[in-house]
């Protein structure tokens, strides 16, 4: 497999005012192939957004390296970085704050072309609007005239403007109503197929993730606890945390299981041993002292658990 994006043992610690430090990403390795969609899932504070920002190059890891197309972004000249950057784009959850309200939709779409000194025309930008299901007539209007779903389409249009090879989408449908969410999920899948786009899809919603991703990496307190092919991982989770996440998704026709007890521990003082042992229903004494490594199991599954469920 030729990896488009590779993270090797990436870690990032933030120093906080009181001398405390927050290890937001704690030694993560992952790979993303061309055209593939990898979903990062986990609860608030697990480090999934920080990891997304590191992979985008918005922030540098303390240790480890991130290779895009085999090249380490951090080690390139600023010119080479800029060229590579055009191939990496990001879509955020809040499309309302992603646009300058005083710029027309046309000028917002033209901006990436201006920054990267690429040619564009009004016609090409209107085509771009239509590609994401918006009318070209929006060209001279302002973002305020769009509904939430339309604005997220515009957000996606701008992200694909320079024909990137990778999109990092951080909770892109979480703020949308379910009927609009379905439209955006369909659009993303369609665009990925048409443009051979790889996507890192950051989300807490397992149903959406199941629909859109090829593989899933589950994060808990800064580390990946399980990774594998989407349908097999959701159908038979090997890590007790993944099991709990899947069971907690409210679904019609399925009674709610016994919920996981307690809250996620503070990332400022993560538990010793396995990070999940304080909430784990099957924890053993060994789990509180010895941290499990992420190990390959059958069927290209990677699991960090001493007592996996498969």
């Amino acid at each position, binding site marked *: 497999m030729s990896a488009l994006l590779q993270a090797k043992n990436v870690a990032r610690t933030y120093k906080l005012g009181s001398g405390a430090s927050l290890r937001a990403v704690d030694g993560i390795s992952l790979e993303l192939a061309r055209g593939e969609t990898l979903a990062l899932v986990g*609860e608030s504070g697990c480090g999934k957004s920080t990891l997304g920002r590191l992979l985008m190059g918005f922030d540098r890891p303390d240790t480890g390296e991130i290779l895009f197309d085999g090249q380490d972004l951090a080690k390139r000249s600023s010119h080479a970085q800029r060229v590579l950057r055009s191939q990496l784009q990001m879509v955020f959850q809040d499309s309302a704050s992603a646009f300058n309200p005083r710029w027309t939709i046309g000028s917002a779409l033209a901006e990436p072309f201006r920054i990267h000194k690429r040619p564009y025309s009004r016609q090409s930008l209107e085509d771009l609007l239509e590609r994401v299901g918006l009318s070209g007539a929006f060209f001279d209007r302002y973002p305020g005239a769009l509904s939430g779903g339309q604005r997220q389409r515009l957000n996606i249009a701008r992200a694909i403007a320079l024909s990137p090879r990778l999109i990092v989408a951080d909770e892109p449908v979480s703020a949308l109503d379910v009927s609009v969410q*379905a439209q955006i999920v369909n659009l993303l899948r369609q665009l990925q197929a048409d443009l051979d786009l790889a996507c890192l899809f950051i989300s807490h919603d397992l149903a959406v993730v199941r629909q859109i991703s090829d593989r899933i990496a589950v994060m808990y307190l800064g580390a990946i606890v399980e990774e594998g092919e989407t349908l097999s991982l959701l159908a038979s989770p090997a890590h007790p945390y993944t099991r709990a996440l899947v069971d907690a998704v409210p679904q*019609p026709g399925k009674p709610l299981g016994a919920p996981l007890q307690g809250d996620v521990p503070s990332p400022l003082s993560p538990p010793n041993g396995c990070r999940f042992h304080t909430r784990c229903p099957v924890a053993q004494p060994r789990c509180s002292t010895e941290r499990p490594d992420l190990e390959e199991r059958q069927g290209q599954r990677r699991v960090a658990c001493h007592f996996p469920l498969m």
Partner: protein
Amino acid sequence: MAGDALLTVGELRLRHRQAGVLLDGVSLTVKRGQILGVVGESGSGKSLTGLSVLGLQPEGSLSGTLAFDGEDLTRFTPRDWRRFRGHRAAMIFQDPMTAFLPVRRIGPQIVEQIRLHTKLSRQAASERVVSLLARMGVPSPEQTAQRFPHELSGGLRQRAMIAMALSCDPELLIADEPTTALDVTVQAQILTLLKEIGAREASVMLITHDMGVVAQSCTDVAVLYAGVVIETGPVASVLQTPLHPYTQALLTAIPPMDGPRPERLPVIEGVPPSPETRPSGCVFAPRCPQISPECAVRPAMRGEGAHRAACVLVA
């Protein structure tokens, strides 16, 4: 008595001077011992319905009936409302951070509410707060009562808010998106708690956009679209055999958690009506795949038994 109607909302209409028609015929009933899910998308009027029950709706012309345990809420004076709110019916919101004053400890804030509505002494009220927090599953309730809202996690804050809402033994708890801001494992904890409350302490009106939440915690459901209740009935019946095309479309738009993965998710074309384009007939007609000439007249609720829908397709 379980099964008796506690709250009856009939043909509730609310027109706002600027925003236009906000509620356009909301009819629903909450029976004692019931957990009624009020479900709809943004702007459907689900939160406004909840607020209207407490007389907290925005300024505008309100018509229709609101009856609570035989009392006519539309005739309430401000004094009546003060006695009613928090005492006989209480509400919790999505964001517990804004429900508590940030500069006061949790316990005294709940004590204040208890002493406003009852004659309990400060000491007795404090004891009641601790037992309430314990009943809501808050660990070490004595200590938690002495903490500030920001010192609690999101899930604990939500439990504290539910404790505050239940502090005067209301007969109705209105919960407006109580789990939307929570992580899924914590959401499961709060839904379990709400189910226990519904079974033992108070009737619950659970306002949500999430059909999954309705499926797992409610006994009955009312589906809202554009300010109109378009379908209502027992949860199992509505989710398994939805009668209204909107409910059907809403359910199929949710990505499935098992079975084959669809190539494309079915979507509902178009957008909900704006005040200018509001149809006089069925409000869903402009987006409905099964429209017929009869839809030009607003359909009444029809159907057999408890499961009813406002659609001409229903026999």
